[in-house]
């Protein structure tokens, strides 16, 4: 296992590392076995996910799991620009807010289904992302981070001060409440948490697939190249800024879709809960701890961190407020010092080792 692919997905050690032309047959067989094991495991995880609501009846736990998926989804969208493009956006909650407000205003005032409003919000978020991204994506390091923070905070302050934006009622700091009247799939509103679970699961799978496609496309390579060595990439004729802008647009669009989900899931949005710096930072933290620029990183990060946040809030919220944030901070510092590529790296290594062990077992068993 010397030639590990750089993407760090851990799932796809496809037989592409044919540095020696005389690939020996047993190695090939072993690779096939390993691929099969990976696929079987992936399938098993998928089936488990689909069957999960049947096993878990407690709405609290289902709520926590929905939030894990929600953050995994958000972080995966963030990762398109924050991970692959190598910049550090710290104001992604503004796109979440744009998505949430757009679909909610459209459905409350004009009766348009949130399913449609979702995509309108996505387009608006892309427009907002271009306003902030086009002038700042070229800048290095901290400037982009600061600009995104200022943009997000500025929009939050504006929304807090605006009662009516033209014909649209935003209701200022009091926010918008969605009355749970028309329950059903057409209105993206359900009385149980199970449909929300399946929707966010589907959204997560779609975005993961999309990230996988992007990471294997020309755009993905351009982004990685531009993120690691901008000068070298440009010298080779890669249009780094254009790749970054495309990644930003994708990221904004998908973050806004999650905004609609959030609005329909909580049925109440206000500026401080949607366009909040806390959410922006939490997304970035999850991505960085999980491993930015990898496909598995955001999901792993959300799986590891979200339960810490929810459980410590449930059990220690009264005695020790803010404890989960202390844990986040400490973990973040330690990960950045000892595992700068995130926790996905050691976990991928363990996963590879387990798969190898299993493949060995299978091959030996087969020859007997």
């Amino acid at each position, binding site marked *: 296992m010397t030639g590990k692919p750089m993407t760090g997905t851990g799932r796809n050690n496809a037989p592409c590392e044919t540095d020696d032309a005389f690939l020996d047959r047993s190695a090939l067989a072993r690779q096939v076995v390993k691929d099969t094991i990976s696929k079987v495991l992936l399938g098993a995880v998928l089936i488990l996910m689909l069957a999960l609501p049947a096993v878990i009846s407690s709405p609290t736990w289902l709520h926590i799991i929905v939030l894990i998926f929600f953050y995994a989804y958000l972080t995966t969208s963030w990762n398109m620009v924050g991970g692959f493009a190598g910049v550090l956006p710290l104001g992604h909650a503004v796109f979440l807010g744009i998505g949430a407000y757009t679909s909610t205003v459209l459905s409350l005032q004009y009766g348009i289904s949130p399913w449609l409003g979702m995509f309108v919000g996505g387009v608006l978020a892309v427009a907002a992302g271009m306003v902030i991204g086009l002038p700042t994506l070229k800048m290095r*390091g901290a400037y982009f981070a600061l600009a995104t923070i200022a943009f997000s905070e500025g929009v939050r*302050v504006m929304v807090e001060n605006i009662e009516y934006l033209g014909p649209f009622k935003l209701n200022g700091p009091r926010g918008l409440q969605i009355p749970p009247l028309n329950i059903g799939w057409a209105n993206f509103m359900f009385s149980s948490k199970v449909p929300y679970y399946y929707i966010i699961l589907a959204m997560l799978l779609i975005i993961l697939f999309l990230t996988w496609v992007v990471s294997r496309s020309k755009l993905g390579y351009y982004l990685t190249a531009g993120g690691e060595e901008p000068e070298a990439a440009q010298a080779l004729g890669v249009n780094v800024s254009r790749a970054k802008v495309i990644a930003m647009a994708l990221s904004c669009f998908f973050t806004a879709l999650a905004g609609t989900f959030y609005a329909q899931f909580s049925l109440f949005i206000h500026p401080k809960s949607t366009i909040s710096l806390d959410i922006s930072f939490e997304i970035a933290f999850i991505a960085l701890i999980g491993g930015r620029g990898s496909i598995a990183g955001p999901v792993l990060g959300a799986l590891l961190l979200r339960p810490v946040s929810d459980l410590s809030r449930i059990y220690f919220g009264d005695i020790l407020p803010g404890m989960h944030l202390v844990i986040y901070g*400490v973990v973040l510092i330690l990960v950045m010092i000892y595992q700068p590529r995130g926790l996905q790296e050691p976990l991928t290594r363990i996963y590879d080792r387990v798969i190898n062990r299993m493949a060995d077992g299978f091959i030996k068993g087969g020859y007997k």
Partner: protein
Amino acid sequence: MIYLIEDTINGILMGSIYGLTALGLTIIFGVLKVVNFAHGTLLMVSMYAAYWTVALSGLHPYLALVIVVPVMYVFGYYLQDIVIKPIFKAEKDVREPSTVIIVTTGVWYVLDNLTLMIFGPQYRTLPNNPLQGKMIELGDMFISVPKLWGAITAVATAFAVYYFFQKTRTGRAIRACSLDRDAASLCGINQYKIYNMAFGLGTAVTGIAAVTLVPFYNTFPSVGVLFDIKGFIIVVLGGLGSIPGAIIGGIIVGIIESVGPQFMTATWTEAIVYGLFLLVLFVKPSGLFGVKYDW
């Protein structure tokens, strides 16, 4: 009209204090080329240090300087030495390591929430504060005494820091490091020690800011966040790394905040400040007084 003048004066005074809070940020950026996201948190820690010094000893609030400044210098020195240095060593070749931004954000979250856990969320004001609500009457205008002292301290500190960087041997070594790390190391400057000192200096200046703030401002665990974002705005306005830029950027923000409410709702001024920040970033990213870097 008289209100406008009064607001402008108050804006300048408060703005200089904002500038003082941002001065440490600009010092640290100037040398380490890193935006310290934990800066507001360091201010919060300094404010708690100042608050407890005064509350426990009963000293005059400004005498807390004698304790707070050295304590914060040591705090900053070792924070950099223990937490941030390992990353600098790991990312030696990178001009502006973004990992450091992330780590300082981690420091921010840890310290803010530890303070929340230890001291609780309540707002604290100094007991038996001799400066409480003290005003100078100037015709029909009222000028707050603690703010006036704060502004004077701000300008004096800025000059002192400037003098230190220009004239002393250590100051020259720090400037050499900020210009070119490798060349400075070749000349026998221990760059990591310089970074520790610069970080400690930035934190100590933040300690001065905290001592001037405590007599008229509440101390609470998330106070840093207010000054954090304001600090970023100020240093970008004035130019990252520029010492006069920090004070003047602070005064601009202070005037907008105190004169703005004459013409609009107070909360809108905040939006204007963010807008101005983005405008400067788009048009002239090096700020009013900044050195042109290659962003």
